[in-house]
């Protein structure tokens, strides 16, 4: 059972022409359209992961640092507010502006 499954998996890679589901297509090494498709596939698959991963990594690192700094100061708010004194209170109890 496992042997047959392995055989099938290997034959796809050894003789892709025989395994193709499409009778009018000719999958093979020399087909330039396939290399174009491969380029597109790799570009489209990798780009979002790289971009989002990069931005996400940067954002999470920034947030972690902000959290660490506020923990070091010993308050739960933004460190800049604690240092700024009066305005830190404004953060917790935002002033309402009456017209």
């Amino acid at each position: 059972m496992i042997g047959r499954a392995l055989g099938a998996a290997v034959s796809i890679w050894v003789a892709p022409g025989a395994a193709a589901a499409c009778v009018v297509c000719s999958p093979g090494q020399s087909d330039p359209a396939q290399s174009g498709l491969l380029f597109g596939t790799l570009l489209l698959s990798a780009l979002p992961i790289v971009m989002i991963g990069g931005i996400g990594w940067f954002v999470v690192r920034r947030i972690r640092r902000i959290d660490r700094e506020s923990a070091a100061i010993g308050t739960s708010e933004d460190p800049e507010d604690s240092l700024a004194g009066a305005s830190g209170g404004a953060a917790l109890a935002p002033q309402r502006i009456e017209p």
Partner: protein
Amino acid sequence: MATRPVEIREGHDTPGHHEEPSFFVKYLWSTDHKVIAMQYLFTGMFMALVGGFFSYVFRMQLAWPGESVPLWGLVTPAAYNMLITNHGAIMIFWVAMPVLIAAFGNYLIPLMLGCDDMVFPKLNRLSYQIFLLSVVVLFSSFFVTGGGFGGAWTMYPPLSGEAAYNNTPAGQTIFIVAVALEFVAFLLGGINFVTTAMNSRAPGMKLYDIPMVVWMIVIASIMFMASVGPLVAGAVMLIFDQTLNTAFFDPTRGGDPILWQHLFWFFGHPEVYVVLLPAVGIVAEVITVFARKKLFAYKTVLYTAIATGVLSFTVWAHHQFIAGIDPRMANIFTVTTLLISIPIAEMMFVYIATLYGGSITFSTPMLWALSFIATFLVGGVTGIFLGASGSDIYLHDTYFVLAHFHYTFYPIAIIGTFAGFTFWFPKMFGRHLNETLGKIHFWLTIIAFNGIFLPLFVTGVLGDNRRIPNHQVYPELDNPLMNGLREVATVFLVVMLLAQFVFFYNVVVSLVRGKKAEKNPWKSNTLEWTADSPPPHGNWKELPTVYRGPYEYGVPGRSEDYWPQNVPN
């Protein structure tokens, strides 16, 4: 730095301003995230009625071909094509997306993060206006020469690119324009969601203190942003083919129709997870509250959601298994497709583990949430057969595929929405829904839903093709067993659609005479329950501060079994 001067214009959006704005300003020109959420919610529900009506018409035709359908008349093949195309497009682009992402995202993100609005409120208003425009454009396509677009919601060329093939010369272009407008609306919305979640969390709210539904909507928005580009590229090329006589997808003039399938499904498959994740997040909120237990493995759920997002960009070619794809590529995409079921399964196991040992209340939202897990599992398991390229060659384009994706999309778009809507209804409108009517509606809907799609798995395995308006033309599909199963499915569909009147009756009656809801009727931890029900413009008089994670239920040593995020100790 901390007191950076910011202009405040006195006007209707200044918090302390008491003058009552006009109806137009308040409900149609508002930048308030809650009003925009309601606009999205009700537009989405209206579109669900339209899409549901379309499904009623074509299922009647499938069960009793050639007979006149009440409220519609004879279903011609052209009308059948129009109905299935627009049913699919409406349910995904104009129901699932606006309700799950835009409505719940707009409503919950600022409230759960403890801010008074989105970071770009005007962009938010523009987002809904463009969305409404897309609805109008879509509806206009039904009334032009040739009628609405009839080339399936996947718009495969050359069928969609040539008016001579799809017989809807005006509808084809208007349809693509409507979809494109809808994407612009969600791009604006998504930018807002992600920026708000990353930049304006309440003081003290760490990344792991963000409620799961917010994370899910944010991850879904990011996935949408990153996947929609290639489809927009393809849509522009398709419109050029239709109107400017280019030949991007026309094989008779050197174009490549398979190219469209790649561009479409590069968006189309992540889109499945874009709508799945918010529903999964809603279920997480509901089951923790009604099981009175901490979410089992918060970080696991978060990381599996991220893993789903990453993997979802590498699975799309499983839609091209019989489109002449190289079998080596099919092999790779089979593996990635089966891999993506692991994180999703993991989420479901985490939810079951959350339920284990909890003190469960079977309220209406909880019933919806539990049925989500049960029905979505069926959808996920049947997906394995389609993800494996070998069995997909046999099952491709049969009713098995159709039943599979309805078993995934129905839990997402309908069950997930009902779970969220019944759960946050007291917060949204300040009144309770009727529990008895809610449960009647739940049981009718859920039984009828299974009654529709379980028979269709069987007809699919028997070889029933998806795209045939009249099976009597094909003798091998026209036998008593298959006809009987089709009739069963249609009868249950009618039952399910009628059951929705119970829901609408319940909503209307509860809005007028329902029991008044206090601030926190479910004894929940998350921040939105600390605002008034319904929250006023600006949400809080004093914006809350956060001290702990959102799922601290049943903590030993406390007198109450919940511990709100904003309570210091």
